[in-house]
Structures are given as structure tokens and as C-alpha cells.
């Protein structure tokens, strides 16, 4: 029985090629692995190896022929033991070249889900009962301690988290309580230890990885995105990474361009991640507990300046906040101001100043950036008809740009003015005190932005 040799595809994009040269003649015996021909594509000249055995009985495409389509029969082998039979030609014909494969289903069959944004009606904030004032630093430590007490699979690792008690004293006391197996000092090698934590998470452990700042996590961002965020999808749901990445994000105070960047839009861009950005102590406690419990990779963007700030925080043992829910910090009627992290405080001060001028601003604390609580923002804008976003990071493709677009999509007709963005200036953050101050959003910037549209 004759077996056809087909024009092979030799690269992901090849649809046709030139049959440059035959290295075997009709009548010659061919063994598997023998080079039988040379093919030229736009990329390179490549050799074609035989996969079948037997005598070459006929050559169907002469050498020198250009534009030979993939899967065209180019020769026939007439013999062999028949055990390693070549592909059946009918099947080959039904298999289109790689790049021309038409989608089997209509695109309409796949409705793009608003995966990074919920559009449901917002629910009111739960009342958690009594509160007391604690610092954001204490809230973060308590969140880790509570979750480590509750679950032996949770552990903390990072630079200076154990014996030094934390570069910013967030992990104070944890080594004493949980010991060196669960509170682990790492060398200053973000790439390696982040990959190690991701591997541990793939087996079901629940690491908390502290980055001394998120600026240093750039060394490890391949492991965060390519390994932690994508594995669940690439494995068809078999294994993912229940892991928390946390640390200070954004500007601190005169630490220069390399230690002052906001990574909110970088991480919020990626499917497979959740991203939260606490402002108050309650945010910090409730969101970090939720992050540690979450079976997905969660980025917790903290702020160094806020660590020492005190806020009232629920004392209930089971206090936790849902990821994906924003909080209306101050109700208002004339304009919606959306902020996250340290900019929530700036927005609230601006609202206070605006009130003195007779303007009632509603301030939304996003808490989560991915999934984004679009519903709460939309509800608010439908009431106020005006939107101002405030963020410390750069404007281009930033969180403010995304929120403005969400508002276009969901409530364009309710807007009485174009949305306005307040953001850090589009420059690497300078060191000089006056320059740094000029580059970061101030209360007056927010007031001015509101005054432009109200």
C-alpha cells in the first residue's frame, strides 16, 4: 500500500513553501529519520525527515516548485512493514494550515464577561459593631497573626520579616509567636524567593510574600504574572497559586524615583490576579485577611506613610472585608470623587474644603482595584453626574483612565461633564522636597479639578 508524504508545516506560521531539493531518488530505500528533501520558507531552509519507512515509489512535486501548500502530497512510499502507517490523506485534507484555521464557533457565542468589574447593585456596608483605634501597621500584623493562627498552611516570608521584626515593623512579634519555620527571612533575591513561594503555593500552601517595597517586586514580576496568575488557566483548573503578595506601594517621602512608583495599574491589568489597596486600618485588616484566605493570587498594595496612621477599626474576631467592594466614605450630591490608598485621605480633605464652598462631594474608597466595584461608582455617578478620579500614579493607562472608560460604557448619558483625572505628574519622582511636592496630587488639585466641572 502506498503511503503519501505530505508537505509539512515547519513553523507556527508556515502555510506554504518552496520544495528546494530532493535528497532521495525514486526507488531508494528510506528509513525513519532520513533527510529526504529540503524546503525553503520565508524564515529559513529546513530539512524534511522521513517518519515512515519503505521504498520511495514516486515524487509528486518536482524540486524547485514554489508555493507548495502545507499538506500537499509531495511523494509516495510504496512499501515498509506498514506498522507505522502515515496519516490518512482525508484527515490531512480536512486539517487546514495552521494560520488559516477558521474558528469553529461564531464569535457571538462567547459573550465577553465583565470579569474585572461587577455590575450588580451595590449592597450596604455590614455593621461590625464596636471599634477601637489602631494603626494600619497594627492592623496588618493582626491580620497575618489571626490567619496564621487559624491555618497552619499560612506562612510569611520576605526580607527582614523575622529577626529584624520587619523593615517597617509590620511583622513585629510574629517570629516569637510562630517560630522560624513559619516566619522566614529570605536573602535579598526577589526573583528566586518569589518563584519558590509560587511553587509552594502550587502544592496548596498559602504563602504571604512581603516585598520591602513593590518597587523591588519588579525583579519578581515574571513569577507573579507568568507563574502565579496564569497557571490556573493553563492547567485547565488543576492547580493555581493561593498566595498573597504584600508591601508598600507608591511614593514614601523623598526616596527618589526607584523607590516611589505606584504599580496599581500594572497588576490590575492582569487576569488571574486580584488587587486590593487599603487606606484605613479597617481596610488593612479586613482586606489582608480576605487576601490570605482567597484561593487566588492577591496583590495587597499598602502605603508606607499610612502605616503609622490610626483609624477606628472593628474589634469583632470575624471581621473581614469582601474583595471587590468599594466603600462610600462620605456621601454627597454634586460630584463623585473616586480614590484608593493614601489618596482617599486627600479626597476627603478636598471634600471638606469643597463643602465650605457649598459643593457636596461623594468620596468613594475603591478598596479593590481588581475586581473593580464598577456598580458602586456607576450608582454614584448616576446621582452626581460628575466624576473626578484621584491617584498617585502616572496618568497614561492608569486606574483613572480605566474608571473613566467604565463610566463611558455604563452611564455616559448621566454625565453632565467630562470626567477629570487627578494624578501624579508624568515624570520619574524627583528627590528635592519642593519638586517632589509639585509632582504628587495635593488637596488643592482635587478641589480645582472639581471646580472645573461643577
Amino acid at each position, binding site marked *: 500500500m502506498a503511503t503519501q508524504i*505530505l508537505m*509539512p*508545516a*515547519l*513553523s*507556527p506560521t508556515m502555510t506554504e513553501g518552496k520544495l528546494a531539493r530532493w535528497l532521495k531518488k525514486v526507488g531508494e530505500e528510506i528509513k525513519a529519520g532520513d533527510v529526504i528533501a529540503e524546503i525553503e*520558507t520565508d524564515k*529559513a531552509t*529546513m*530539512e524534511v*525527515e522521513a*517518519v515512515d519507512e519503505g521504498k520511495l515509489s514516486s515524487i509528486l512535486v518536482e524540486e524547485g516548485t514554489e508555493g507548495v501548500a*502545507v*499538506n500537499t502530497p509531495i511523494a509516495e512510499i510504496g512499501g515498509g512493514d506498514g*506498522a*507505522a502507517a502515515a*496519516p490518512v490523506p482525508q*484527515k490531512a485534507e480536512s486539517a*487546514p494550515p*495552521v494560520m488559516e*484555521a477558521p474558528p*469553529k464557533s461564531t464569535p457571538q457565542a*462567547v459573550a465577553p*464577561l465583565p*470579569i474585572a468589574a461587577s455590575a450588580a447593585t451595590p449592597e450596604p456596608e455590614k455593621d461590625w459593631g464596636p471599634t477601637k483605634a489602631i494603626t494600619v501597621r497594627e492592623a496588618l500584623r493582626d491580620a497575618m497573626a489571626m490567619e496564621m493562627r487559624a491555618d497552619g498552611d499560612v*506562612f510569611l516570608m520576605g526580607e527582614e520579616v523575622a529577626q529584624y521584626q520587619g523593615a517597617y515593623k509590620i511583622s513585629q512579634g510574629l517570629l516569637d509567636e510562630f517560630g522560624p*519555620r513559619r516566619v522566614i527571612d529570605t*536573602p535579598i*533575591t526577589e*526573583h*528566586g*524567593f518569589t*518563584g*519558590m513561594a*509560587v*511553587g*509552594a*503555593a*502550587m*502544592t496548596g*500552601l498559602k504563602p504571604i510574600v512581603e516585598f520591602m517595597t513593590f518597587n523591588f517586586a519588579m525583579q519578581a514580576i*515574571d*513569577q507573579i504574572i*507568568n*507563574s502565579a496568575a496564569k*497557571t*490556573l*488557566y*493553563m*492547567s*485547565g*483548573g*488543576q*492547580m*493555581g497559586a*493561593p498566595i498573597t503578595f504584600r508591601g508598600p506601594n507608591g511614593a514614601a517621602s523623598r526616596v527618589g524615583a526607584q523607590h516611589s512608583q505606584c504599580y496599581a495599574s500594572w497588576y490590575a491589568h492582569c487576569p*488571574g490576579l*486580584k488587587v486590593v489597596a487599603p487606606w484605613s486600618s479597617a481596610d488593612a485588616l479586613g482586606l489582608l485577611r480576605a487576601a490570605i484566605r482567597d*484561593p*487566588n493570587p492577591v496583590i495587597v498594595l499598602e502605603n508606607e506613610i499610612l502605616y503609622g496612621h490610626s483609624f477606628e477599626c472593628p474589634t469583632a474576631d470575624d471581621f473581614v472585608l469582601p474583595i471587590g467592594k468599594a466603600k462610600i466614605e462620605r456621601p454627597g450630591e454634586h460630584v463623585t470623587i473616586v480614590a484608593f490608598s493614601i489618596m482617599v485621605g486627600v479626597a476627603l480633605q478636598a471634600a471638606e474644603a469643597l463643602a465650605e464652598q457649598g459643593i457636596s462631594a461623594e468620596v468613594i474608597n475603591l478598596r479593590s482595584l481588581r475586581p473593580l466595584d464598577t456598580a458602586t461608582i456607576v450608582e454614584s455617578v448616576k446621582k452626581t453626574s460628575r466624576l473626578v478620579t484621584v491617584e498617585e500614579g502616572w496618568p497614561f493607562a492608569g486606574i483613572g483612565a480605566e474608571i473613566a472608560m467604565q463610566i463611558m460604557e455604563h452611564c455616559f448619558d448621566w454625565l453632565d461633564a467630562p470626567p477629570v483625572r487627578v494624578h501624579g505628574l508624568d515624570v520619574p519622582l524627583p528627590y528635592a522636597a519642593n519638586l517632589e511636592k509639585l509632582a504628587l496630587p495635593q488637596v488643592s488639585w482635587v478641589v480645582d479639578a472639581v471646580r472645573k466641572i461643577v
Partner: protein
Amino acid sequence: MGKDDLLRAYHDMLLIRRFEEKAGQLYGMGLIGGFCHLYIGQEAVVVGVQAALKPGDQVITSYRDHGHMLATGMEARGVMAELTGRSTGYSHGKGGSMHMFSKAKGFYGGHGIVGAQVSIGTGLGFSNWYRGTDNVSVTYFGEGASNQGQVFESFNLAALMKLPVVFVIENNRYGMGTSVERASASKDLSKNGAAWGIPGLQVDGMSVVAVKEAAEQAIAHCRAGKGPFLLEMKTYRYRGHSMSDPAKYRTREEVQKMRSERDCIESVHHLLTEQGVDEAEIKKIDDAVKAVVQEAADFAQSSPEPDPKELWTDILVEA
């Protein structure tokens, strides 16, 4: 290795070879797309190491991964169906050649970023250490990855914490088209962990017997809590880096010489003959392997493509 072990190794290596040949064939027909990195030539490495492992041990590697999957016992049909992008593939068609996983078989991928699996594999060893088991993580990477920064970061972490990780460098001489001589200032890669006190061995990776012996030594070291071990397997890939490889960086004679003089399957065939196994018994294995591979290829072509709804599943675990 006794007769039964050799027969098993012969079967396992032949399964990988025939599987890869079939995959190359389906690629040529346009049924497999994208990147497809074949393992032909290197079969003795995974088969020899796997023979020294026990249940609960973990395996992780790069994108030249089909052989590792088959060695851990993952089914040929599920791997082939993933290659053709079908719903019955190990990742439901969402991973492809470079991204398959099996928790049940201890296989943790299938990673496409050169070197990334080395720190993840160190984390698998960390997990064994954290949980107090005596399992080990076998972390494979090529000589091309061996100079990645995170590989050395991982050596340091594993040695510092005495993690049970067997680092296996599959030195097949070429990182894509660049020979190891042109890419690595270190000439004896088994000594690459020396700065961290990681013991290493250079092993004839074309001999399944030598691989198994070295793996047993390395694994015993790790199980005893003595920290990581490094094995450099001197091996060779017969095919190109991926399917589109013009193969101008080495001579055809070099490839032919390895194939005819050092082939890992042929040499086991020879050992079996010496031990008095007759050709009929070997032919029976050949036929059985061919049947499994043909069945896998049929399954991979007849299975349906993933439902469009699969686009939106497995992005996040629903809490």
C-alpha cells in the same frame, strides 16, 4: 538494572520516542500548532530518574516536557489531545505543548519562561520541607537555562534551607542554536552549585542505567535531609530546538554519530539481547507502544475542540 527493570525502561523510552515522532508528524500536518519542542534523543534522562522516585515526589520542567509527562505516568492520549488543542487534553486545550500539569502524577508543568521552573521547583522542595515529608522535588532545566540569575538564587535558597531538591541539568549541548561552549563560562556544569556546597555529578545521560544510579544517589541525599543535589546529564537532542529549526549550528554527521553510536534505546536493546531476551519479546513491546501512540493520535484528532465557554473558566478559583 535487572532484566525486568531494563524491559520497563525500554518500554518507557520507546513510548516517548514513538510519541514524539507522531507529534512531529501531526505538526507537519498542521494538527498541532505553535511551538512544539521534541525530546527525541534524551529519553534516558527522564526514564532513569523516574525509576528512582516514589509516590509523592514532584517533577517540574521547562517547555521540552512531553517526555517528562509520559515518564510520570500521564496518559499519552491526554497529552496528545492537548497538543492538538482539544477539550480532552490535560489542560482542556488551554495550555498546549508547553503547559500541562497533573497533580495526581506529581507533575507541576510545563513552563515556558526559561529558568522560571527552577525557583518554582525549589518551592516544591520547600513544601516538602514545610510539611515534614521525605519527598523530593526533581527540578529539570537545560544547560541554556543554567546561567539564569534565578537558578543561582534558587541554589542559594535550597542550600541555605537544606531543601530536598534534585536539580537536573539536561545538557543537550545546544540552547536553541547556541552551543554550551559559546554560552557558558562554566565548563563542568555539575560544579555550578559548588559555591553553595551543593554536591554534583556528571552523568552519561545517554545511559539509562547510569542515570538511574546517579538519581538514586542524589535522591537518597535529599531524602536524608542533607539538602539539594545537582546532576548534570550529558545528553543530546536529535531534532531541532522546536519545529522551525534550520539546524545550521551543527553538522548532520554529528547528529548521525550520536544516533548510531550512543542511542539510549538501542543500547538498552543491546543489553536485553545480552541478557537473553529474544527479539519476539522486544517486538511485542514495540507493537504495544505503537498501538498506544496510534490510539493517542486518533483520540487527539477525533476529540472535540474546547467549548467556547472554556475561554472564561479557570481564570480565578471561585471562593
